[in-house]
C-alpha cells in the first residue's frame, strides 16, 4: 500500500488499484416513539416491553405515520444539503424472518423522502465532497437471539418498527480514512440537528459497505460486494481493507469477482460470502396499501428549515472569522456539537477581555486530557464551562501563571470548584509586585555573585538559572514575565 499524496492505493507487482466505496448508513431516528406506532424506543429496555399490537403485526392492525419522524428525516435532508421530495411513497419489502413480524418491512423504494445531496469532508490534504444519493425512512426489524438456548431462538421485538433513516452515499469514497471522516461527519451533522444520537455501541448508527476495486486511472467501476451491517468505524475500515485486498488478489489471479453480499467476521478480521447475486432475495416491493403517499407542503419544509441550527460547516467558518482560529482548531471544536457548545459557553463566560486562543489551547490540551483519562464525554466534563472561563481569565489577567493554573485545574476537577476560591485559599496568587520581586532578585544575585559575573562575561545560558532560582524562591508564584524583565535590568 502506498500513501503518495495521501492517495490510498493497493499495490501489486505491476499494478496499482483504486478502491471505490459507497455506504448505506442506517441511522436510528431520535424519537420517543416508533415510525408507525406509539411504542417507546428506549434502548436497553427489558425484551418485548416496548411492543404494540402494530409492531407485533396482529391481525387487522394498521400503521399510522409518526409525523415527528418525518420531520426528523426532512431536517436531516436539509442538513445534507439535499433535495426534499414533497411526495414520497412507503413500500413493502417482503421477506420472511422470525424477527420481522409483518413478513415485510415498510420502507421507501422508488420515491424516497430525500433526494440528492452532499457533505464536505475535511481531509488532511484538503476538502472532499461526497455525494448523497438519497435518504429514506424505514422500519427496523426486531432482534433474534440465537445463543441463549441450544434449541430455540428468542425474539425481542423492542426494535421492531423503530424508525431508521437509510442514507445512501454515491460511490465517492476512496479510502478507509475517508470512510472514517464521512461517518464522523454524518454523525456530527445529525447530532447537531438532534435527529440521531449517532451511538454506534447501541446500534443507532450502522452501515452496509459497498466495496469495489479498479486499476488506477480507470473510469469504469469494478464489480462490487456489499458488506452487511458493520457497526463500528474501526470494523468498517478493517472490512474495507480486507475486502479490497481480496478483490485485488482475485483480479491478479485472473479470477472474476462475484457480486455478492458478505459478512465481516470481526474476530477473524475477514469478510465471508453470505449470499450470491443469484440467491439474492426478491423483495417484491410494492406501495404499501395501508399508507397513502406522504405529501408535505412547501410551508412545512420552510418551517423546518427555520428550525435548523448552525451546522458544523457554518460554525467552523464563523469560528475562523469571529475568533481568528486556525482551520485545524476550528475543526476540532466543531466536529462534536457538545465540544462546540462547551467552547462557546466558555467564550461567553470569559466576558470582554478574553483570550480565546488561550481558551482553545486549554480545552484541546488540559481538558481533553482529563476527559480522555477519565473516559468522559465533554457533556460530562467535571469542570463546568463557567469555572473553566474563570480559570482562563485568571491566567489572562496575570493573577496566576500558566504553571500554577495547571495545579489549580487539577484541584477544580474534584467537584467543579471555583478556581478563584482555590487561588485564594491556597495562596496561589501570582506575585506581581515589582518591588517585592526586585528585593527577591537582589538577594539571589547577591547569593550567586560568581554566576552573575559569568553571565555578564557572555555565558547567556545562565539566565535560565536565575529565572529558576527566582521562581523557586517565590514558591512558583512569581510573575515570570516580571522576573524576566527585572533580571535583564539587574544582571
Amino acid at each position, binding site marked *: 500500500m502506498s500513501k503518495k499524496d495521501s492517495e490510498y492505493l493497493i499495490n501489486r507487482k505491476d499494478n496499482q488499484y483504486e478502491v471505490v466505496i459507497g455506504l448505506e448508513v442506517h441511522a436510528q431516528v431520535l424519537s420517543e416513539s416508533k415510525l408507525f406506532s406509539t411504542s417507546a424506543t428506549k434502548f436497553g429496555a427489558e425484551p418485548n416491553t416496548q411492543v404494540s399490537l402494530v409492531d407485533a*403485526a396482529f*391481525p*387487522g392492525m394498521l400503521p399510522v405515520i409518526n409525523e415527528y419522524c418525518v420531520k426528523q428525516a426532512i431536517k436531516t435532508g436539509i442538513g445534507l444539503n439535499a433535495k426534499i421530495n414533497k411526495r414520497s411513497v412507503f413500500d413493502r419489502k417482503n421477506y420472511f*424472518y*422470525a424477527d420481522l413480524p409483518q413478513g*415485510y418491512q415498510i420502507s421507501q423504494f422508488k420515491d424516497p423522502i430525500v433526494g440528492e445531496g452532499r457533505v464536505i469532508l475535511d481531509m488532511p490534504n484538503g476538502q472532499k465532497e461526497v455525494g448523497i444519493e438519497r435518504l429514506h425512512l424505514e422500519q427496523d426489524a426486531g432482534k433474534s437471539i440465537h445463543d441463549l438456548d441450544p434449541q430455540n431462538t428468542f425474539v425481542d421485538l423492542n426494535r421492531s418498527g423503530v424508525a431508521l433513516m437509510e442514507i445512501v452515499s454515491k460511490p465517492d469514497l476512496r479510502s478507509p480514512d475517508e470512510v472514517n471522516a464521512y461517518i464522523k461527519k454524518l454523525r456530527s451533522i445529525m447530532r447537531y440537528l438532534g435527529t440521531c444520537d449517532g451511538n454506534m455501541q447501541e446500534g443507532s448508527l450502522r452501515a452496509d459497505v459497498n466495496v469495489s476495486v479498479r486499476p488506477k486511472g480507470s473510469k469504469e467501476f469494478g464489480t462490487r460486494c456489499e458488506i452487511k451491517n458493520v457497526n463500528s468505524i474501526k470494523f468498517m475500515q478493517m472490512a474495507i481493507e480486507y475486502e479490497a485486498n481480496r478483490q485485488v488478489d482475485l483480479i491478479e489471479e485472473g479470477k472474476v469477482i462475484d457480486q455478492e453480499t458478505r459478512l465481516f467476521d470481526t474476530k477473524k478480521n475477514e469478510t465471508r460470502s453470505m449470499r450470491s447475486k443469484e440467491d439474492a432475495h426478491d423483495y*417484491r416491493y*410494492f406501495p404499501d396499501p395501508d399508507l397513502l403517499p406522504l405529501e408535505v407542503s412547501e410551508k412545512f419544509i420552510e418551517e423546518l428549515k427555520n428550525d435548523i441550527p448552525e451546522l458544523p460547516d457554518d460554525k467552523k467558518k464563523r469560528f475562523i472569522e469571529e475568533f481568528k482560529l486556525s482551520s485545524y482548531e476550528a475543526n476540532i471544536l466543531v466536529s462534536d456539537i457538545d465540544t462546540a457548545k462547551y467552547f462557546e459557553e466558555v467564550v461567553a463566560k470569559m466576558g470582554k477581555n478574553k483570550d480565546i486562543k488561550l481558551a482553545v489551547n486549554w480545552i484541546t490540551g488540559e481538558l481533553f486530557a482529563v476527559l480522555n483519562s477519565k473516559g468522559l464525554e465533554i457533556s460530562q466534563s467535571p469542570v463546568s464551562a463557567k469555572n473553566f472561563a474563570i480559570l482562563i481569565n485568571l491566567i489572562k489577567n496575570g493573577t496566576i501563571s500558566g504553571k500554577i493554573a495547571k495545579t489549580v485545574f487539577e484541584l477544580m476537577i474534584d467537584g467543579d470548584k471555583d478556581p478563584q476560591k482555590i487561588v485564594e485559599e491556597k495562596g496561589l496568587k501570582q506575585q506581581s509586585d515589582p518591588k517585592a520581586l526586585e528585593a527577591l532578585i537582589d538577594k539571589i544575585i547577591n547569593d550567586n555573585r560568581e554566576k552573575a559575573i559569568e553571565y555578564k562575561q557572555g555565558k547567556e545560558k545562565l539566565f535560565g538559572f536565575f529565572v529558576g532560582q527566582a521562581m523557586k524562591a517565590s514558591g512558583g508564584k512569581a510573575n515570570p514575565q516580571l522576573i524576566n524583565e527585572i533580571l535583564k535590568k539587574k544582571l
Partner: protein
Amino acid sequence: MTLHPLWIKQKKFDQKPNFNLKLPGIPMAVKDLFCTKNIKTTAGSKILNNFVPTYESTVTENIWNEGAILLGKLNCDEFAMGSSNETSFFGNVQNPIDKNLVPGGSSGGSASAVAGQLTPVTIGTDTGGSIRQPASFTGIVGLKPTYGSCSRYGIVAFASSLDQAGPMAQNVKDCALLHEVISSYDPKDSTSIDFKRNHYSQELTNNIKGKKIGIPKEYRVDGMPKEIEDLWQKGIQYIKDCGAETIDISLPNTSYALPTYYIVAPAEASSNLARYDGVKYGFRAKGENLIDMYEKTRSEGFGAEVQRRIMIGTYVLSSGYYDAYYLKAQKVRKLIKNDFDEAYKKVDAILTPSTPSSAFKIGEKTNDPVSMYLNDIFTVPVNLAGLPGISIPAGHDSKDYPLGLQIIGKAFDEQNILNIAYAMEEKINFKNKITDWWIK
C-alpha cells in the same frame, strides 16, 4: 361463577334499557373477520383457529357503543377469499333459500344469518363483491360503502386497498341505520377519510324524482342468462316508475376489471398474509428449523384457495413480472376509475345486475376457480374505483332463487344510493321465499 361480559351487558340492558341509542339491546352476530375483544376471531382459517384478539375493531366498537350486543361470530370464506363460502376451514355455509345452495361469499354466513332471521342485521366486508353478491344470493340488502368510509382497523386484512366493511339487512332502512353507526373517521386507519357523514337513516327518502340513472352497456356480458337481462329491464322500469330517468352510458374498461382485480387483490393478500407464519400467534406446525416450520405452518394452516391467491400475488409482484402485471393493473385501475368519473358527469348513479346468475349449488364451481371468479364481474369494478354500491333484492329466477340489482353511487354519496334503493324497494315489494329448512 363469573358471568361473561356479554351476559352482563345484556342483563344491564334488561334492567335499565337505554332506547336513546341507535341499536338498543339489539343482538347482533358479525362476520368472523372483525376482531372482537376476548372472543375468538378466525377469519375462517385454520391458521387463526385459536386466535383471541385483545382488541376490538373500530366498526364493531361503534356498534356496541350504540347498544347492540354480540350474538356470535359468522362463518365466512377463509380470509374473505371466495364467492360461495366454501373455502372456510370450518365448513361451508348453506343458503336459507335451499340447503343445497351456496349463500355466496365471502360474507356468506352474514347473508344467511340475516336472510334466515338469525340476526336482525349484520356486517360483512366487501373486497370484490363479498357483501353484495351474497346479499343478492340470499335476497337481502347489502351495502359496500365508499373506500375510506368505514375504518379497517381491527378487520383481518385481505386486500387493503379494496377492503371495506358494510351493513347487511332485511331492508334498506335497517341498512341505512347500521351504516350510520359503523361509518366513522378513524385516525387509526390511515386510509380512513374525514368527510361529513349523513344521518343516513333519518335523511332517507323515497323521493328520487328527476334523478338520472346510468345504464352501462358493457354490463350486458356474453352468456348472461336472459332472466338477469329481464330483471335489469324491470329495474329500469322501477326507476322510471319512481320518477327518475335512465340514460344509456358506457364504462369502456369494464371488461378489464376482473383480470385487474385478480392481480391487485392477490398481490396485496400475498403480503398481508405473510404475518401468519406460526411465530407470534395462531396455528404453528412443528418443523426441523425456521424455514421448515414456516412451510409446514402455512401449507397446513392455509386452505387451497388462499394458497392459490398467495401464489398468484407472489408471482405478479416478482421482479421481472411486476411491471407487466402489478404496475399495468394499477394503470388499468385508474382507467376504470376514470370511466366512472366520466359517467358521473352525466348521471347521479348507475344501475346494474348484482351478479350474472342466481345462487348455484354447493360444490358446483369448487373445481373451476375462473367460473367462480366470474361471479364478481359486476361488483369488482366498484371496489377498484373505491365507490359505494348497494345490492337490493329485486326478483326471483325460474327456480325461485332471489336475484339482486346493484346501484352504484359517486364517492361519499351513500345517501343517494340508499334513497334510490329505498324508492325501488317500495316498488319491487320483494318477498324472500325462505323455507325454514333448518327448522323442519
